[in-house]
């Protein structure tokens, strides 16, 4: 099966593409200290040209095919479909090299970094998936890699820390603030300020413009493949519904990308409700947040009455981010996407269910997307695609612990 590069429409004019200042509606922009201006400007001036070049596309697609293992299958989940009386397809991003969709972005950004002549790479990571995907492409390209990770996450995610180190990355503990993903991102940005020659390989559709747009374009391969895979399997490029989990929102951005202007396709973004949206222990940003600025972008943000950023909670280290990418804030505000949420308990239940009836252990993040299936009413023959963003190996300890309870 060959990748159909010609389908990528990078120039499509749409209200879901950022304007020249990086805004999706009122969200986005580049709220950065002057120190970062030259770096961000250099990237902004070059990223589209690089991504659209034949040279980049050839290298990117070739690595995605032979190194990552794309295209990832679009699997018809027969037993899951029977249970929920719909035609449910799983986009198997969990089968990518390194176990999640994250590598689509790191492959693309490492090539962009090379074109810009950058040799030192920095990244932030929460659960460690983006850190591993970054360390992997740095090993592949022989580039210097430093990953910032919250001190608490380093303790919670020991296997991924070991993986990154084995891949040759330096893992730096973020000891400020709450010592999790938000603080790892702060530390990465502070390091970037002090080392402007480095390339900040950001892991989600967050950060100052052009990072959200760049990452969305690199994850767009997910929905690009979905189109022709659905056509082959159902006769139509468009499903009725696409479901994806959202922390920062990179896998959802990729799964939605080529469908955002096709309004008959229902887009469902699932946030982590933690112990419950109103429990005080939640990461359901769209429900709990207000307009604010985090990590260089104006978006919806969990904050107190004085604009201090509130620490979110979720059982899933990949979803406990107090903001959401500006594109998603716009999809939410414009009602183009429906935002739902799932609690820790619902996500665990959904993960056990998929494991038992389909033989697939999903990542905890992904389990949140699966967890809304019981909450939806499907019409007859409704075609639903769930973006199975990652595999659950990294979460085994949590799964085993809760299975006993």
């Amino acid at each position: 099966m060959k990748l159909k590069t010609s389908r990528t429409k990078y120039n499509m004019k749409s209200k879901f593409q950022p304007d020249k200042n990086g805004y999706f509606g009122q969200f986005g922009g580049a709220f950065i200290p002057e120190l970062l201006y030259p770096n961000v400007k250099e990237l902004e001036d070059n990223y589209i040209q690089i991504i659209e070049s034949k040279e980049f596309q050839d290298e990117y697609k070739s690595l995605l095919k032979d190194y990552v293992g794309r295209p990832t299958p679009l699997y018809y989940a027969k037993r899951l479909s029977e249970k929920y009386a719909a035609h449910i397809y799983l986009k198997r991003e969990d089968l990518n090299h390194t176990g999640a969709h994250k590598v689509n972005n790191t492959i693309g950004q490492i090539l962009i970094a090379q074109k810009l002549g950058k040799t030192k790479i920095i990244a932030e990571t929460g659960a460690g998936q983006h850190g591993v995907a970054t360390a992997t492409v740095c090993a592949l390209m022989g580039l210097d890699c430093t990953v910032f990770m919250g001190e608490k996450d380093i303790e919670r995610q020991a296997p991924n820390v070991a993986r990154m180190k084995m891949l040759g990355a330096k893992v730096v503990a973020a000891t400020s603030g709450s010592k999790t993903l938000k603080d790892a991102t702060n530390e990465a940005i502070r390091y970037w300020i002090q080392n402007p020659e480095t390339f900040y390989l950001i892991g989600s559709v967050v950060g100052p413009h052009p990072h959200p747009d760049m990452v969305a374009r690199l994850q767009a391969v997910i929905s690009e493949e979905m189109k022709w895979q659905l056509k082959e399997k159902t006769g139509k490029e468009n499903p009725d519904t696409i479901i994806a989990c959202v922390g920062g929102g990179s896998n959802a951005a990729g799964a939605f990308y080529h469908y955002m202007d096709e309004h008959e396709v229902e887009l469902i973004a699932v946030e982590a409700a933690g112990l419950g949206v109103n429990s005080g222990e939640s990461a359901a940003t769209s429900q709990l947040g207000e307009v604010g600025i985090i990590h260089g972008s104006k978006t919806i943000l969990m904050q107190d009455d004085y604009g201090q950023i509130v620490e979110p909670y979720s059982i899933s280290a990949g979803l406990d981010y107090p903001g959401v990418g500006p594109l998603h804030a716009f999809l939410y505000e414009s009602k183009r996407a429906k935002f739902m949420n799932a609690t820790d308990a619902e996500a665990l239940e959904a993960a056990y269910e998929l494991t038992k009836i389909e033989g697939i252990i999903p990542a905890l993040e992904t389990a949140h997307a699966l967890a809304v299936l019981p909450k939806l009413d499907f019409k007859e023959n409704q075609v639903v695609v769930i973006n199975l963003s990652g595999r659950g190996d990294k979460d085994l300890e949590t799964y085993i612990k809760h299975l006993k309870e």
Partner: protein
Amino acid sequence: MKSLESILEEKDNLLSIYFTCGYPKLDDTTKVISELEKSGVDFIEVGLPYSDPLADGPTIQDSSQKSLANGINLDIVFDQLMSIKDSNKTPLVLMGYLNQMLKYGEDKFCQKVIDCGINTVILPDLPMVEYENHYKDLFDKYGITNVFLITPHTSEERIYKIDNYTNSFIYVVASASITGAKGEISNNQIAYFERIKNMNLKSKLIVGFGISDKQTFNTACNYANGAIIGSAFIKNLGVNGVSGIKDFISPIIS
């Protein structure tokens, strides 16, 4: 309160001190300002504690966390500043992050700033394009001046543009760093200071980031109208408290 503009016009070798409100104790804000005034500081940067201060190093991050834990918020800060509006003569500059103003309400924030007798703000994460598109009109409406930062990597074209927008001073960030970077001033930094000085800008220049003692202060003053000490002051404040302020300032301005 004297106006910042008149101080900038009248004096050279200006010493400014940055401190974090509500640190080390919640009600220390006014005491710190009063001690700084008595110690002969020329103007004071009042730092609004923020949960995620991207441009700040460990010292200011830590003081901000402690101040927030003390229960500080913007309403308390404005009350504290209002209480010394008539007694304090030293010009104050407010330094915070954009989200604080956004959440508080931009107009309400500006009105409070003016009510406290302050007309100058520093928002390190407010980029020039956003200033041009939105905040210039807002600040003009209230008579507030925005201080822009320039760095060793800011282009000449951009510096001239900033000079044009500036009504008070340009904040010359001494190196590619966050606040609190250590050590002596390098030859590269001197070359950068000279380059900026030789641009003959209309605005006054104040150097900050990495200025910590008499030596670094004097070096900066050779190329600019003054300098700001932040992290080194906060460190001393954390150890010696408000009563140690005079002993910290005296050797620098002697």
